[in-house]
């Protein structure tokens, strides 16, 4: 980084002006940025589409694609940061640097920091300054004091705009579907988002990609603009640039002024000590001596200048500022519990206990929530499209207000039905046949039944989700069962025995 080569006007801006400043940087280099964007994101998009069409994990495609979004952000950030300081941002070099940038930004890819509320202003710290761990946190703390809230604002605006665009494109597309075909997509356009169809998932992903393509670079640029503006203010980059240019213009005569400026600047901006650019791409340049100040560092020049500055009237003024400060009591010698008095100790103990209780209650709440999520897994796991999660052999079956388990059914359904029938327990025989068929339909053929399913609903589900002959067989079973259960009408023996003969052809693979 060399401030003399900066290609924009550096000056303190208001935060919203700074985001606009970032957006203008994106517009200036839009061609290079979008070329890199497409080059980085299209392979991810292709992978996500493959996931949809060729694997059972299609429901995860959108999430996975979205999760790896910061990879492209890193590339965009590299281009605008280099162009800002007048450096070349070769597209090929940027693409080559993508894996390294992704590794630098791994905190946003591999940890919950992916959900960082102000990622657009946090990423430059990680990528451009190369900080990590406590150094990154300390640096972020300084910057966040000024721009974190604005970073959240950018994220909120971006997410809302992307969603609005996403839904808008889907709605416009839906509006162009002729009325005659609309019913095939459901009653309302919102059903597009819940369709269990690979094509619908792919259309959803492509629409999201379009919305994201339109907005993502601006999101990165706005965050970068805020970051640069914050550093400009904290480190007085604008003053430094002005003095550097002045020095260049009037190299000999203004040496003292330049030195004075360099000496005064730390007083104006204390956090400057940790605000150094360490991007490997630009680090080489910062390591070189700055030619603009060569020859001005001898004591003969500096000491008298310092003395004159210190003696100047501007530095003799004093100002009294009063403020509240928390008194730290970490040092036991500084303030003992005896000094504080029993009431203070009790109050401390009470609040300590209270905070512990709140924390404990929160953890209990989290545990209960997780337990509920676990217990309701049968309801939400199917929506994730995980074949393992919806394995029919593990699916719980609820029928008529109770759970139907393998233990409630005989090992050999057909033998049990015949035996009960011969013994004159006709209702029991048909009950076993019906429940055994429902159990087998769910476990062997993955038929999904709602908890409130009546006999008719079971027939409907089996008809819709299995082949015709099995559905017809199931319909006959239900017909006999219903007549017996609700009409008190015993079926003919031949009909029951015929069903027993046919049962193994349709069900019973799990027996």
């Amino acid at each position, binding site marked *: 980084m060399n401030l003399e080569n900066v290609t924009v006007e550096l000056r303190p801006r208001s935060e919203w002006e700074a985001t606009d400043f970032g957006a203008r940087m994106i517009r200036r280099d839009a061609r290079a940025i979008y070329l890199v964007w497409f080059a980085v994101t299209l392979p991810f998009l292709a992978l996500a589409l493959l996931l949809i069409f060729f694997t059972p994990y299609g429901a995860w495609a959108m999430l996975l694609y979205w999760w790896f979004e910061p990879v492209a952000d890193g590339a965009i950030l590299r281009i605008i940061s280099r162009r800002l300081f007048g450096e070349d941002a070769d597209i090929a070099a940027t693409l080559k640097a993508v894996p390294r940038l992704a590794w630098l930004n791994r905190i946003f890819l591999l940890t919950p920091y992916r959900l960082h509320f102000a990622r657009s202003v946090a990423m430059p710290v990680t990528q451009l300054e190369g900080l990590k761990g406590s150094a990154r946190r300390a640096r972020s703390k300084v910057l966040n004091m000024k721009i974190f809230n604005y970073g959240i604002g950018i994220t909120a605006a971006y997410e809302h705009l992307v969603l609005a665009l996403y839904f808008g494109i889907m709605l416009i597309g839906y509006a162009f579907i002729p009325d005659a075909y609309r019913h095939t997509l459901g009653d309302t356009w919102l059903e597009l988002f819940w369709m269990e169809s690979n094509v619908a998932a792919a259309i959803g992903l492509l629409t999201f990609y379009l919305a994201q393509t339109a907005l993502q670079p601006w999101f990165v640029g706005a965050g970068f603009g805020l970051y640069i503006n914050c550093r400009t203010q904290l480190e007085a980059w604008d003053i430094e640039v002005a003095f550097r240019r002045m020095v260049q213009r009037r190299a000999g005569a203004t040496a003292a002024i330049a030195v004075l400026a360099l000496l005064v600047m730390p007083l104006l901006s204390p956090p400057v000590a940790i605000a150094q650019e360490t991007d490997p791409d630009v680090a080489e340049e910062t390591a070189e001596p700055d030619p603009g100040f060569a020859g001005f560092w001898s004591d003969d020049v500096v000491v008298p200048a310092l003395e004159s500055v210190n003696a100047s009237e501007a530095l003799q003024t004093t100002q009294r500022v009063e403020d509240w400060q928390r008194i730290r009591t970490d040092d036991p010698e500084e303030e003992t519990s005896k000094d504080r008095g029993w009431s203070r100790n009790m109050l401390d103990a009470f609040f300590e206990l209270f905070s512990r209780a709140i924390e404990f209650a929160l953890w209990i709440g989290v545990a209960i929530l997780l337990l509920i999520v676990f217990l309701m897994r049968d309801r939400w796991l199917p929506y994730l499209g995980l074949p393992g999660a919806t394995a029919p052999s593990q699916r719980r079956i609820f029928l008529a207000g*109770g759970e139907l388990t393998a233990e409630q059914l005989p090992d050999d359904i057909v033998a049990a039905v015949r035996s009960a029938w011969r013994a004159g327990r006709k209702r029991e025989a048909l009950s076993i046949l019906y429940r055994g068929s429902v159990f087998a339909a769910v476990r062997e053929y993955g038929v999904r039944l709602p908890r409130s399913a*009546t*006999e008719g609903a079971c027939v409907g589900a089996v008809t819709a989700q299995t082949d015709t002959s099995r559905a017809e067989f199931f319909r006959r079973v239900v017909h006999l069962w219903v007549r017996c*259960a*609700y009409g008190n009408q015993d079926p003919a023996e031949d009909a029951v025995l015929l069903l027993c003969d046919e049962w193994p052809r349709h069900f019973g693979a799990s027996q």
Partner: protein
Amino acid sequence: MTDQQTDAGKLYQQVQALRSEIERAFIGQATVVDHIVLALLTAGHVLLEGVPGLGKTLLVKSMSKAIGGEFSRIQFTPDLMPSDVSGHAVYDPKSETFRVRRGPVFTNLLLADEINRAPAKTQAALLEVMQENQVTIEGQSARLKPPFMAVATQNPVEHEGTYPLPEAQLDRFLFKVLIDYPDHEAEKKIVSAVTTERVGDSLYVDDVKTVMSCADVIAAQQLVARTRIDEVVLDYAVRIARQTRQASGIRMGAGPRGAISIVRASRACAVLQGRDFVTPDDVRKVAVPALRHRIALAPELEIEAYRPDDILGDILESVDAPRTGYPVCPSLSSPSY
């Protein structure tokens, strides 16, 4: 085969004939026809809701002809008086006595068109007739000749200058049936049927044959009332009605008359399927039209354009199907259903 089963089989044939005759004139609305026939078999009344021009009058006229009954139509308007509905006494100067002139309610099938356009007093006159099956004119009561069925209509679009029916009066209707536009093919058939070799756009029910008599209808109603319903199925109907009082999003749930209507209609539904016993699926089929006018949604749901049908659908999904006393399998050590 029992007598009940034999009668049910015969009735099934008659009802199928009745349905197909009505559908000859009233094309492409099979569900509406089913619900109207169910109401007729249950001796219930129907509130039809649909935009004008969907053939509501034609429906009632064709059913009237199919059962060989009388038909009357009252167009409800803001200035309609109760006596215009029930009848009134007029002075006969010749005999110097008051003579009772019977109103249009003395019929078998009554179409009360746009019932919400008349004030509450006039609505109440009709609703009293529906409930009591009798009319009081000048202090003298007169029973209506059975079968009597009222089909009231409402327009869901124009609410300007209307008097919405109060919940207590809505409760008198067995069903609220929503009538929607027919699909493309059905509409083509309607247009063709109405315009081929016909002058004007009058309603023709000439093609409809009389397949039942009023006496048949009364016998059918009695047979439906005797249709077997298992206690668990009856309990299922009651649980559904009760759930409307507990479900979130409902300001006012259905009263006991809701469950009564479900059970009555599910009996007719069973007959319509050719059965002499009711199954839980019959209950499910009739629950929505029997309850949709008996519940009032919470304001927040109404603002979000939810309809009673949406909430009733959720309720049906949340109520467990009846457990029909599954016997314990003796070969198992642990008890099952």
